[in-house]
């Protein structure tokens, strides 16, 4: 799977071009038709003339990121997040900024200069800035402009026991799984959609569902996993390494019970571990897909991601592999009419 190249690509919400180009290049040999829609989502279609239910597979290309909103006289950059980021995790993190991908460090007032009451409170966005090594406003402006975007600079790396870390497993892991699935010979009309602007309100997926009018939709996602310190068992959402997670409810969707039950049954029949996502918070493209037009039967298969929406996210490669196996097994089942709808 193309995890390294995909997670290291630059894809702020609304600026997914680099990721889209990479996916288009990889998908072209397996596609019958490739379209980029008005918002920028990449729609890869296969087996257009095949009989059987049309299945939409969706993964989002965008990642949590930042936008430059001001340049100070001393060359420091003011910024705002695009998507949900906890400002408390930002200080001292390295970013890639603007079209030249120059390095920047998120800085803040040094601890010895902070007033006692400032030390007690976490640093807010207005106390943080990006330092790109420029000494003046003019120097900074020769490298970046207001409106430029930035992403975490983390490189993909495998470590420990079948673990990998990178900046954007949410949701390049979904993109990687979809790209791999396109190589399989599945006798169904298939739409693999790589959507835009998920992180800022599920904006890209609705027009994709409206355009492609699928019978079923399956969203591939990276989802929250907090099985580490100080979490009550029911607050951990998912467990790393325990298999792909299926959604009961999230903040935008009550899962379609029969379709989820079908996916779970397929997992059991094929000996693929699955877990239920044990939290309501968060959402994914399914939140808009299932409400499109007269309603679409949809489900999600999610890969647990520790430290999601942070500079270094971590996955278990067995979960990635099992999410892929589950997706393919479900498609093989649908091929045989296993879920009539």
């Amino acid at each position, binding site marked *: 799977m193309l995890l390294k190249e995909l997670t290291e690509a630059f894809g702020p919400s609304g600026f997914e071009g680099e990721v889209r180009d990479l996916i288009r290049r990889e998908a072209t040999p397996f596609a019958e038709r490739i379209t980029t829609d008005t918002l920028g989502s990449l729609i890869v279609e296969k087996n257009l003339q095949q009989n059987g239910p049309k299945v939409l597979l969706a993964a989002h290309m965008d990642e949590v990121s930042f936008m430059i909103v001001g340049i100070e006289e001393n060359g420091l950059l003011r910024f705002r997040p695009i998507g949900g980021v906890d400002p408390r995790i930002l200080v001292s993190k390295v970013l890639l900024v603007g079209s030249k991908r120059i390095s920047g460090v998120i800085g803040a007032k040094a601890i010895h200069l902070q007033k006692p009451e400032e030390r007690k409170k976490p640093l807010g966005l207005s106390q943080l800035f990006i330092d790109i090594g420029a000494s003046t406003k003019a120097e900074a402006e020769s490298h970046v402009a207001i409106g430029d975007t930035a992403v975490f600079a983390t490189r993909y790396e495998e470590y420990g026991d079948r673990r990998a870390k990178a900046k954007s497993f949410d949701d390049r892991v979904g993109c990687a799984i979809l790209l791999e699935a396109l190589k399989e010979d599945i006798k169904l009309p298939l739409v693999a959609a790589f959507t835009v602007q998920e992180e800022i309100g599920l904006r890209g997926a609705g027009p994709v569902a409206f355009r492609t009018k699928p019978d079923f939709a399956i969203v591939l996602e990276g989802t929250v996993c907090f099985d580490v310190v100080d979490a009550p*068992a*029911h607050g951990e959402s998912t467990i790393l390494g325990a298999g792909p997670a299926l959604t*009961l*409810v999230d903040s935008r969707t009550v899962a379609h019970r029969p379709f989820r039950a079908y996916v779970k049954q397929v997992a059991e029949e094929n000996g693929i571990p699955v877990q239920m996502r*044990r939290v*309501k918070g968060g959402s994914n493209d399914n939140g808009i897909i299932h*409400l499109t037009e007269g*309603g679409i039967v949809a489900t999600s298969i999610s890969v647990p991601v520790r430290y999601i929406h942070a500079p270094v996210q971590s996955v278990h490669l067995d979960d990635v592999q099992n999410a892929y196996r589950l997706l393919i097994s479900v498609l093989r089942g649908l091929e045989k009419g296993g879920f009539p709808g």
Partner: protein
Amino acid sequence: MMKELLQKLYDVSGPTGGEDAMRKRLTDHLGPSVDEWSVDSLGNLYAVVRPKETSHGVILLTAPMDEPALVVIDDRERPYLRVETLGRLAASAWIGRTVQCSRTGARGIIGVESEIKSSDVTAHHLFIDLITDRDQPELGYFFTAVTPLTWHDERYVSGPALTSRVPCAILCDILLQGATSYTIVGVFAAQSELGARGARVAGHSVKADLALTIQTTEALDTPKAERGTVKLGGGPAIKEADRDMVVAPRVRAALTHTAKAASIAFQLEINLTSRSDAGVLFLSRDGMPAGGVSVPVRYPNAQSPLMDWNDVIATRDLFLSLLHQPEFLQNF
């Protein structure tokens, strides 16, 4: 008649997102009075009553059929089940309630972790004490509050699920009255508690000349309540504006003229903080004429929503009077 119907609907559980039992009860009850049934992927139930002769237009009538619910997300501390809340009730409002599983019928009591202040309670502090280890529900099963319908002097009625069951009873009764000169599409809407999700999809599925919601609106006639237009016992509240929409004057006028002609006392619903299913209906497709009539209710977000039965009957009568005017859609 309507009172028995309400009781029948009240006796089944309708958790938001899992309205199966409500759908069954409604189809059983309406049976042959409905010409065509269907269900969509969100769980909306569509009941079409065709006109006697040629149709003078399609009228979509919606009533929410769902109530706030708890969904089981973790069962590793049996017999205590961890839950998330769905719908408008705050997590703290569930504490101490008896709840019932909509699929297995198992009952339990809502407990809360003892170290937490009541103002800080979230769903993560709650659990269902299922008391015994029998009949363990699966993850994803729903529980709703078990509280009997209570009558006060035969005129007032209270109970937590009234905000959906009264609209459903009104819509049922309208459909049972038989054919008019319109094609009536009754939608018992799913997932209304979660932000009009069912209505959004229904608005796309049914191309109607007019959509009207049958819902409830908070009566603001209690001590130190927010200022508002609606009183308990003041009659049907014809929607003029809510948080999601301003009703077109011609739609509102059709309802107010009908009420005046039929000598039905009414009031106007102007509540810019409350939401309804009408807001998504009028934005569906390329725009749909939409409005609504709401039954006044006191304490809609607490344990005992309270209604005046006279308002309920008058709301139904207003709809029946409207639907028995053969020509009103032509003036639109």
